[in-house]
């Protein structure tokens, strides 16, 4: 066969093989990935979608640091049982500002895409401190150091600025006020608190997330967990049938 004859000759050229490998290996990615950046319908337009506040972002970074994504997904599939268990299925718009996304691949624990508002702050604090205090048969790790570790806020402006470089619409004002906003979101009676809702919207939760006297990593993580699934109302307005 001429094809095998051609290959017989290709095998004598290492660079030819390398070029062949690059060509054969590029097609799939180009066809499947490139259009996701150009087709408009890929990500729905959610007019009310807001960005993470500095405190929530700091909490998200703690979530990353502790590797929570290894056991919790944040992606409700379009299946009837998942929608009934967790809530409306996840839309692409909801994670459009997530660098990186945290859809996850394993549910050793439940999906938490719509965790926000399901439990009280106190429950989260107790649960994170030692899950077995509130859920006796839980196998989740305990995170007692979160309440003891002060939150690092001084560099949050740089974090917001970096996220703006990769496409998240943070304003100059948000970047400038980031450390103060982080503190103020957990201090509703402070002078700065009004600035948080002014910059991030009326729906932003401004309250004491823990009883700790200073701002700790626990405050940030709870603030993040309480915002999951609440950044936009679009999933509750979208009605598309799910797979039985």
């Amino acid at each position, binding site marked *: 066969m001429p094809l095998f004859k051609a290959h017989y000759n290709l095998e004598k050229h290492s660079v030819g093989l390398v070029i062949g490998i690059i060509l054969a*290996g590029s097609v799939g990615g180009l066809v*499947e990935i490139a259009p996701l950046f150009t087709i408009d319908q890929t990500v729905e337009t959610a007019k009310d979608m807001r960005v993470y506040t500095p405190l929530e972002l700091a909490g998200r970074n703690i979530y990353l640091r502790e590797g929570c994504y290894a056991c919790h997904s944040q992606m409700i*599939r379009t299946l009837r049982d998942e929608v009934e268990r967790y809530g409306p299925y996840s839309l*692409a718009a909801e994670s459009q500002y997530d660098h990186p996304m945290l859809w996850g691949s394993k549910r050793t624990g439940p999906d938490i895409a719509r965790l926000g508002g399901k439990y009280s702050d106190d429950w989260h604090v107790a649960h994170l401190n030692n899950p077995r205090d509130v859920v006796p*048969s839980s196998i989740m790790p305990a995170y007692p150091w979160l309440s003891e570790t002060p939150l690092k806020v001084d560099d949050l402006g740089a*974090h917001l600025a970096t996220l703006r470089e*990769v496409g998240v619409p943070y304003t100059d004002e948000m970047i400038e006020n980031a450390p103060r906003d982080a503190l103020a979101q957990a201090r509703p009676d402070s002078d700065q608190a009004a600035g948080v809702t002014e910059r991030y919207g009326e729906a932003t939760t401004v309250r004491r997330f823990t009883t700790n006297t200073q701002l700790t990593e626990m405050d940030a993580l709870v603030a993040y967990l309480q915002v999951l699934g609440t950044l936009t109302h679009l999933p509750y307005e979208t009605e598309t049938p799910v797979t039985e």
Partner: protein
Amino acid sequence: MIAQLTQAERVLAMVLSVTLAFVGLAMAAVAKQDPMAVHGYIALFLGGALVIMLLRTWDLPAPDEARFERYYDDPIKFGIVLAMIWGVFAMAMGVWVAALMVWPDATFGQAWSSYGRIRPVHTTGVLFGFGGNALIATSFHVMQRTSRARMAGQVSPWFVLIGYNLFCIWAVTGYVMGITQSKEYAEPEWYADIWLVIVWVTYLVLYLRTLKRRAEPHIYVANWYYLAFIVVVAMLHIVNAAAVPVSFMGAKSYSAFSGVQDAMVQWWYGHNAVAFFMTSGFLGMLYYYLPVRAQRPVFSYRLSILSFWGITFFYMWVGSHHLHYTALPNWVQTLGMTFSVMLLVPSWASAGNALLTLNGAWHRVRDDATLRFMFIAAVFYGLSTFEGSFMAIRPVNALSHYTDWTVGHVHSGALGWLAMITFGAFYSAVPLLWGRERMYSPTLVEWHFWLALAGLLTYVFALWNAGITQGLMWRTYNEAGTLSYSFLESVEAMRPYYIARTLGGLLFLSGICVGAFNIWMTIRGTQTMAADRPLAPQAAE
């Protein structure tokens, strides 16, 4: 190590070591309180240790010209030893993380030892530490033997191995300090990623230069697979790791991609790490060591060609099967599923080619545990590629995704295929490389084989049961039309399976410990054979 280097090469090695030490010092200096400083100190320490080692042996006599007529085996030996160290370490970590799912408080209450931080230590340690070193070491062996030529570089093989291991050490020490991009199987931060690109390009150049020196007109099929492994892993890594650091003085970065695009890029990377790291590279290993050990030629040359290009082309399409029923557009899911099913053809062509090669050598499979390791590897390669294609079908995935079935599938590949073929290759190569007639103890090879097989079967059976039970519990409805089980009930139902999988892991770990001891004793034994050397080049046909 240094005795093989000429004066000029020793100077080059010294320059590289000093540079590494300075880079480490600079990292530590700018990072200050950031955990990246620890990585700076690690590089500084490693660079310093290399400088001291070079200085202490600086005056050794220069090698004779005859060295170019011998194969360059020292880096291979180093790579094999490193792979075994990583294997024992990472599998022990695996047993620990498995135990944490039964006894969640087995962390000593320390932040660094919590599940989410040490789980990537296990995955990176096995995949990149054990698997990566095994691939680099065996590729150095295969490229020289099948080309009948000495490796082209003298210092670059060491640079590749030491540089690669620095990357792995940065990765695992980073996770326990909380440095992670949290992209599965691509967790290391931006500076480690850049460093890996430098190491990897050096590796590719070394490979191509060695092939250029070959005394054979044709490039043997094992090398195609190693080349695909090196080239495609570079493509995947560079795209998926694209990120912007918050500051060049700290570890934290933000991925260039977000949301649905990030998910697709991540699983295009993630599944092809399986394809080109865990499959293509190890098929290179299979195509060399299995025929050599069985003393049979590869069954079919044409099947080799078809399966090679089939794997290289099809695999790159299938990543989206990790995202069925998600917010990823349907057309991409459908493409991923379709190609996943088609992928079974080249996968089974490879597995079949390997098994048919054993025709006429079945008595050796029976008697020789080393060859039996490779036989089991080919069988499990066939089984897990079938399972993979099956799980990629959308309705099957509805049940299997997010459950322990996926974890079981990965381990059927990682333990059954990747580790088994590596042990077969090591047991073939170690006596040859160290000039021994055989392994220190063939009985211990048998022990290792049966421990590994028992561990593997215990593990995958436990997780098949776990995964299917979980998947069914999540979707079971009662007569009133509501969900029957709470999530917590599904967690409680997992306990016996998690205990069984920990035991399976423990068996597999004891197997590799026996193997490491056996290899160590073989190395310590006395040399009984002369080292082989490349034959004089012959004219091409």
